[in-house]
């Protein structure tokens, strides 16, 4: 199925049936429907199966290091506030290797969309546990099953008062699309944690499992109430999906750039002013 945002002459390296295909399609459709110009859009990713996404979609891209997409995305947004900036990667990339950046990017609140493909397993390195793997999940490394508590990105983001906190299931495509669109429209940091199955390495958390174990947040859920968002975030069986919390506050780039949005590449410093400041010494 061709799409205008397809990057041409690429050979997609995902396994047949991978949940990433759905997320790729979702992102292309949302960008198109929101009329976000590909020339004004940058996708930053790290390393992992999910982080291959920007290589298959024809926007600007920054393929970076494992876990490090968020600091890159933050400074891109600052350097040119008119760009639409997306940081995208998997649960290992964003919550494991890049966990520190996850916390501090939320604190900064740059106006970016943070998409995390969450399949509860490592794909690229062939089947080890991820930070979100459930207890007891056995792998070639975790031979007696995962012993650690799974990482809950939703409650962590809420504890840091992230401005937009959401989770979707790629198996519930139309709901996922609605939420991702809202994330792009939100002014500030927006987390979209996407449940997706790994059809090769995770035989537990399948399409069917995600469909059976999730439910859409009730229409009367108060998105502006942090406490009720947190109580929803802590529900484990079934797991709620949707927008848990939304609250706009001043963005990182706005707080520093004030009312100017010129790309930094267009600016030079005032050398006369520099001379005056030097003369004070």
């Amino acid at each position, binding site marked *: 199925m061709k799409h205008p945002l397809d*990057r041409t002459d690429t050979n997609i390296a995902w396994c047949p049936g991978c949940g990433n295909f759905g997320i790729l399609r979702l992102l292309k459709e949302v960008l198109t429907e929101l009329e976000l110009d590909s020339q004004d859009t940058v996708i930053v990713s790290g390393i992992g199966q999910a982080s291959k996404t920007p*290589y298959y979609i024809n926007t600007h891209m920054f393929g970076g290091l494992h876990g490090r997409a968020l*600091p890159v995305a933050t*400074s891109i947004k600052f*350097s040119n506030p008119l*760009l639409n900036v997306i940081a995208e990667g998997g649960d290992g990339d964003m919550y494991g290797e890049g966990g520190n*950046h996850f916390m501090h990017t939320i604190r900064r609140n740059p106006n970016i969309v943070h998409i995390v493909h969450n399949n509860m397993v490592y794909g690229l390195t062939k089947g080890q546990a991820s930070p979100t793997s459930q207890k007891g999940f056995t792998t070639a490394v975790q031979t007696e099953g995962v012993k650690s508590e799974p990482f809950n990105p939703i409650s962590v983001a809420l504890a840091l008062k992230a401005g937009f906190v959401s989770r979707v299931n790629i198996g519930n495509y139309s709901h996922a699309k609605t939420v991702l669109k809202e994330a792009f429209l939100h002014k500030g940091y927006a987390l979209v944690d996407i449940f997706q199955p790994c059809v090769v390495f995770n035989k537990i958390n399948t399409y069917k499992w995600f469909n059976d174990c999730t439910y859409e947040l009730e229409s009367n859920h108060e998105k502006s109430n942090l406490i009720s968002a947190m109580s929803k975030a802590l529900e484990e069986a079934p797991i709620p999906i949707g927008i848990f919390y939304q609250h706009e506050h001043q963005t990182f780039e706005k707080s520093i750039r004030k009312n100017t949005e010129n790309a930094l590449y267009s600016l030079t410093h005032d050398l006369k002013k520099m001379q005056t400041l030097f003369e004070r010494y």
Partner: protein
Amino acid sequence: MKNVAVPFQPTISTPPVSVPKYEEVAQSHTSSVSILIAGAAGKGLKSLENVLSDAFKQSGYFVFSTKEYMSRVRGGSNTTLLRISDGPVNAPCWHVDICIALDADALTHVQERLRDDTIVLADDEVTHEHISITNVPMLKVAKEIGNVNYMNSYASGILFGLFGLDKNILTQSISTFFHEKSEQENKESMLKGLEHTKSLINLQLPKLPKPLPHLTESMHLMDGSSASGFGFLAGGCNMITSYPMSPSTGVLNFMASMSKEFTLLVEQSEDEIASLNMVLGGWYSGARAMTSTSGGGFALMSEAISLAGVSEIPVVIYLAQRPGPATGLPTRTEQGDLNLAIHSGHGYFGRIILAPGDLQECIDYGYLAFELADRYQTPVIYLSDQYLADSIGMLKTVDFSHYEQRRYIQPTTHSYNRYTLTDTGISPRGVPSLGEGIVVSSSHEHDERGQSTESYQIREKMVEKRKQKIALTVLEAYKPKVMGEGNIALISWGSTKCIVSEVIKMIDDPRLFHVHFMWVYPLNPDHLDILKATQTNIIIENNVTGDFESILKNHGIAIAHKILQSNGFNFFTDQLKVELKKIIKDIV
């Protein structure tokens, strides 16, 4: 999005920038007086250093000051050395003419630096069985005025009084540095110190040199951190993302103070990994970004340097060295990270390493760091150290209009490829939203578009491309500065420059001359001919193994002698003189 213009878009074929050529400042003073002030952390040594440097400069003297301090916020024993002279002086000495000790521990701390004829002033309560002390009631007076911390201003009054200098100048300096915080009390304490010197007329003081206000008036007093910072600003720096770490924090503070004046993001990152990744994101989208750090933080940046290498994104790293391993001596100095800077990051890619040696070079090479990073799309590591960053000296006015503002980025067309193969190895660098093209930056081996590839043919081409860039930077390498002529070369790099210059003048042996490197990597072999032709090469390095010596040896340069040190101090001119004399007396 509307496209906005880029100020000036040169390409790799545009000739390199030149920085203003200035006359090399010889260490040409005829006499100088050294003053060592010692006291605990938190007792205002830094303020005293600022006040006295300013006041002596305003009185017509050339001033240099440097400090050594412990890694603690309060207590311990720290020192500030001031040298006052009638000509440029930019190096520290070990033995001093005058010492002011604010407490007994301080006196013990500095006793090795006292000669028999050193005048030692200390509080009434300080005694020492071997050191002859002139006691002054500084603690008592400070307490009477209201706070023991006014002792520092008392000491400044003592010095001005003993030398019979104009107290109005000192009063003005105190106003400048203490305005809004106990200005009156500090002035009162200073005046009490000044008054007290009337009872000290029998002290045999060293003679102050002749003041030369017509020369010093137009000069500027600043530390190495500030000079580096001005250089980075001149280079167009508009983003600095750093995690604080001594002794690099001076630059971060300076840039933060400048963020009120210029469009300049100063962000304290969560860790050094984030710091350099933010720098990469900044340059990718058109900013001129840098980070500041020291060895431990730099070690955390290794993977991101490697990313800069493969994705050909410029980065500038200010690396202020301190002694390791690990935490080492956090507040002290060493030239110990050259090999780390050269070899950090996995894989094969180029980089440029600059090491300024004085304030003027701090500015010039700060500017050039950004210019070179942008021109060659490569990491530039700017090596300073605690000694250079924290020492205060004087420099002539710099004309900032001479620093040409370039931006090596090109508007893109629809068919733009980020990694286009070219004759030079440099591909035109586009940034998102400037033009029609899509900018693909990749950490993988990639084709010209930036798309990941495992084709061995493309891999070979891209390896060759990155190798070509290294060859280009070798061609652009700046020659070492050669000062004087003779058949014994004293080789320095980075912060030891002015110490070596002064020692050459002190020894006054016509065989000695000075070869100073501020571009330390990669070297252009043609620039080393002078060392091949010299009878005896002696290298001076503040590290344990002679890191730069190894590089020179790899280029076939014979180094007959090396003077190395790794005790946490900078070199001192009088000590280095003794070491050098021992070596050269046997050279025929």
